[in-house]
Structures are given as C-alpha cells and as structure tokens.
C-alpha cells in the first residue's frame, strides 16, 4: 500500500474525497476486472459440477436464477470493461494533445456510460426474457 514520504494531511475515509468522473470510470474498470475474474472462477466451478456430478445437468443449471444472475453480471461487467479498456488503449496510443483531450473529455465519458447502459439493457433482456 502507498505510504506518503512526509507528513502531508491524509484521510483514510474514502467519502471525504471528491473524485473526477474519469477517476471513477477508471476505478470501475478495475472493479469490473475483479468481478470478471470472480465470475470466471464461478463458471469453471459450474462446468466442474456439470461434468463430474451426475445429478447436476446443464439443463438444470441453465434454468437456475443464480446462473442467470451470473450471466447478467458477467456480460454487464465485460461490456463495461471492454468499453473502458478500449478508451484506455486509445488514450495510450493517441498521444497528440488534441486527440488525448477528446478521448478524456466528459462527452466521451458520457458516451461510454450511455453505450454501456444500452448494452446492459439488451443483456438483461437477452438473459431473462
């Protein structure tokens, strides 16, 4: 964990900080990455159950609400991680000041959130209906 080299004022209470939108989006990229690792472990656990426990079948598992919740969480997290990852890659590749400013602008942040919202609605519809 980062330790400041001097005695600057600091707070361990995260609600004391006001993060800019890009910092929140970047933090969410990490959070969704972690969620994806956890959901991959859950998918592997399900595959093991289906393959090695005769009482558990793919048909049973697919109909279970927990599996549908897992699908929803996985694809929603993946769509966000994909979109913000694309933005990170663009920001690292296009280093000219004008392009960099456009990539990091509020308009692009809201475009990312809007696209993610629409894709999340379609994921929920596809999984549950």
């Amino acid at each position: 964990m980062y330790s400041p080299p001097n005695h600057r004022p600091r707070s361990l209470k995260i609600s004391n900080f006001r993060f800019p939108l890009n910092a929140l989006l970047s933090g969410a990229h990490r959070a969704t990455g972690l969620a994806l690792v956890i959901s991959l472990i859950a998918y592997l656990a399900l595959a093991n159950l289906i393959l090695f426990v005769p009482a558990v079948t793919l048909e049973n598992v697919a109909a279970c609400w927990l599996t549908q919740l897992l699908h929803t969480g996985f694809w929603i997290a993946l769509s966000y991680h994909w979109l913000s990852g694309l933005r990170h890659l663009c920001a690292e590749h296009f280093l000219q000041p004008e392009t960099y400013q456009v990539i990091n602008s509020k308009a692009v942040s809201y475009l990312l959130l809007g696209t993610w919202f629409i894709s999340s609605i379609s994921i929920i519809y596809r999984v549950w209906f």
Partner: protein
Amino acid sequence: MKFNIKSSALSGRKAHIWQRISAIYLLFYAPFLAIVITQLPDSVSLKLLAYQLNTLPFSTLFEVASLVAVLLVLVHAWVGVRDIIIDYVPRKKVNLWLTLYHSVLILLLLNSIMIAFNLFGYA
C-alpha cells in the same frame, strides 16, 4: 515454476506490455465470443454444446482463437489483479496475496485444460 512471488522481483514494463498485447487481442475476441454464443441453440449437456460448437462453419478458427484467449485472459487477469494487490493490500501481506493469487490462476489453467480434454478429447 516459481510459487513464492515477491513484489520486489516483479517488472512494471514487461507487465504493461503483456497487458496491452492481451488487451488488444481480447478487444477483438470478446465480440467474436458474443456472436458465437448468440448463434448456439439451447443445449441439454456440455458434450452436446461442444458438438454444436464443432459443427459451426468457423469452428476451427473459434477453437484456436479460444485457446489463445484462455492463455491471454490469464495473463491479463494476472497483471490486472497483481496491480490491485500491490496498490491496496498492506505492504506486509502483498507477497502472501500475490503467491495465493498466482496459485489460484495456475489451478484455473489446469482445470481449464482438464475440462477441454473432457469435452473435446484434446486441449
């Protein structure tokens, strides 16, 4: 294979390069995976699902792409969560958490190979 991971021995530059390579590959693979999944009919068993995957017109391409994707997902997951552990876990416990996480990823890789053998007869 090293099991005892020490944060002082980790490289930031190499990790960044691998993170970018895997990110670019997965950027193209994820939509491909979504398209393939939407094309599959409902299955009653994993073996039938594997058979249905084999009958798709681009099944060989999908299988090779998926094999590379599994390896790159593990690389991407290693670098990403490794950075989270280094940033947020108290310094005294970093090496322990890195070793644990590294072992979990190796287990996931072995388990994925086992499942692939079971479903397709090869890996």
